[in-house]
């Protein structure tokens, strides 16, 4: 995973609640066995509508996605995170993320920024009013701000997750440092637990 410290740029306001991962990347796209090439599938059904926010020229080039409540619900497909990233987003802001989606974000360096519903609504309105509004997300200070209009808040990230973002660490490599603990745990498992021959 690539290290992420600062994400700054403009944002796309996706003002909908309960954006599920079937919308983010419809199931037709899940047949690929590669990890790349998902940007075309991002919101592909909604993008058929010319008025859909991602199709609006004033938001082109944005690298931050602002969503509504319960962003990323539904299917566990990590393809949703890959699609958002490969389209060009580095962070997603929402008042509440679904658990699996949020986990998937942290495995790929897509910053999940959880803010209060009030802050989210203010930010959404500000970006709708001024699509050129610059935002800065600081993963070290855990802040998100829009300096031009004086909006700023903090967001939560587990210290271990924050460290992985900042250092770009490989999760599996970190876990394998505990290999002897895993060996010891395994030796004490109940003998009847199911296993394949």
């Amino acid at each position, binding site marked *: 995973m690539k290290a992420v410290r600062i994400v700054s740029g403009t944002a796309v306001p996706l003002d909908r609640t309960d954006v599920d991962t*079937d919308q983010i990347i419809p199931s037709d796209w899940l*047949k690929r066995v590669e990890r790349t090439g998902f940007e075309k599938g991002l919101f592909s059904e909604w993008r058929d509508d010319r008025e859909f926010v991602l199709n609006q020229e004033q938001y082109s080039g944005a690298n931050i996605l602002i969503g509504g409540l*319960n962003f990323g*619900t539904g299917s566990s497909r990590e393809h949703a995170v890959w699609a958002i990233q490969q389209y060009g987003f580095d962070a997603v802001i929402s008042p*509440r993320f679904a*658990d699996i989606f949020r986990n998937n974000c942290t495995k790929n360096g897509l910053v999940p920024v959880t803010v209060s519903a009030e802050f989210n609504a203010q930010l959404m309105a500000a970006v709708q009013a001024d699509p050129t509004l610059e935002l800065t997300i600081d993963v070290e200070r855990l802040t998100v701000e829009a300096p031009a209009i004086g909006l700023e808040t903090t967001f939560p990230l587990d*210290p271990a997750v924050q460290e992985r973002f900042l250092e770009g660490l490989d999760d599996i490599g970190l876990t*394998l440092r505990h290999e002897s603990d*895993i060996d010891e745990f395994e030796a004490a498992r109940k003998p009847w*637990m199911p296993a394949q021959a």
Partner: protein
Amino acid sequence: MPFTARETEMSEPRTLSQKIWDRHVVTAGLGGDPDLLYIDLHLIHEVTSPQAFDGLRMNGRRVRRPDLTVATEDHNTPTINQDQPIEDETSAKQIETLRVNAEHFGIVNYPMGHENNGIVHVMGPEQGLTQPGMTIVCGDSHTATHGAFGAIAFGIGTSEVEHVLATQTLPQTKPGTMAITVQGELEPGVTPKDVILHVIGVIGTGGGIGKIIEYRGNVFENMSMEGRMTVCNMSIEGGAKAGLIAPDETTFAYLKGRPHAPTGADWDAAVADWRTLVTDEDATFDEEVVIDAAEIRPQVSWGTNPAQVMPIDGLIPGPDDFDDPNLANTAARALEYMGFEAGMPIKEVTVDTVFIGSCTNSRIEDLRAAAAVVSGRTVADGVRTLVVPGSGKVRAQAEAEGLDQIFRDAGFDWREPGCSMCLAMNPDKLQPGERCASTSNRNFEGRQGRGGRTHLVSPQVAAATAIAGHFAAPSDLD
């Protein structure tokens, strides 16, 4: 013995999920760091695993415990002509990739057409792989199904699949706890599916986020294992990390004699251990919801998320029925997508398709219940119907009981096992604008095919709807 030492140290009353969690902590996270959790069973399928195996190869890593890993092919598989090559090239490639990976890394795979093949969450329990007290993961959000046995089971993404393959563990922040108690007598005709749809309607799509739900109360105690699986399956639709039910005699009776269940003295030791898997009397939950069973009616979803549900004898709601502006906006958008006006009785709505299947409702009991409704009756003109058993075993059992004939005689299309129209990755799809009564778990926009309109229902309501041609309860057919 790390877990026994840990258990005896702990005298605080604990909930069932906390007990199972504590048993699986390899190294405890300090200061907000996640625990490293051991995974007892890793189920895999063709859609969320190819990139994980690629990652292992790129880094020269092995699968740590192929013996605790089991694969099946389900999401892409066609439900007709499974003895022929798959026509869709990308689906065929994904299935072939799983076979090559399973072979290369020494993992048991039940390929399409194998008697043990089926939807991953039907196959695991029926093989006896799912047992009380275990941690089970799968790259599929409906993994919570296995919680019906008193296990912590949850869905993971592909990076986590790779992590479990390489280490048999996952770094996980301990979730919160939530009790959902349904107490009292269910009205006749109210099924486990109606109970869980009602629950999601109460807590909302985000109500369980960050928590493991324990379903408690006599309604769940009296349910069969199939019913409990239907309930736990949909925990994710309420946002929960997982859902579970304490194991009891019903659980043990279901497990006994299954291929991977313990035998002899091991069985006795296992049952003695499993009996300890209950929430301590003094334990408290972070959140508790209590529902009176008598208020639950047979349910139909009217919108585009699984919390947008209504009683089958009700009127389709409008945005004005919601005080919360978010819910009102979401309702307005859903009504437009579904092609509805507020205030119409849902029973007057006609359907184009009826789908009976999915990891929520494709087990033998579901098929028996649907068959009992359609027996001696005929599907309404113009309604397309699919019955897709959850596994090869379910299909064989149903055929041995003559259920396939009952469905065929009524005009239903009897298919081969797989996920099928639940997520439309195979040829079973809705056309734009088509309306479907479905026993699956998600009514998201386009879930069953681009532009398709999905209504979540129980197998009984699906069956009655197929006969009537519009939404109906079995009692409406008399």
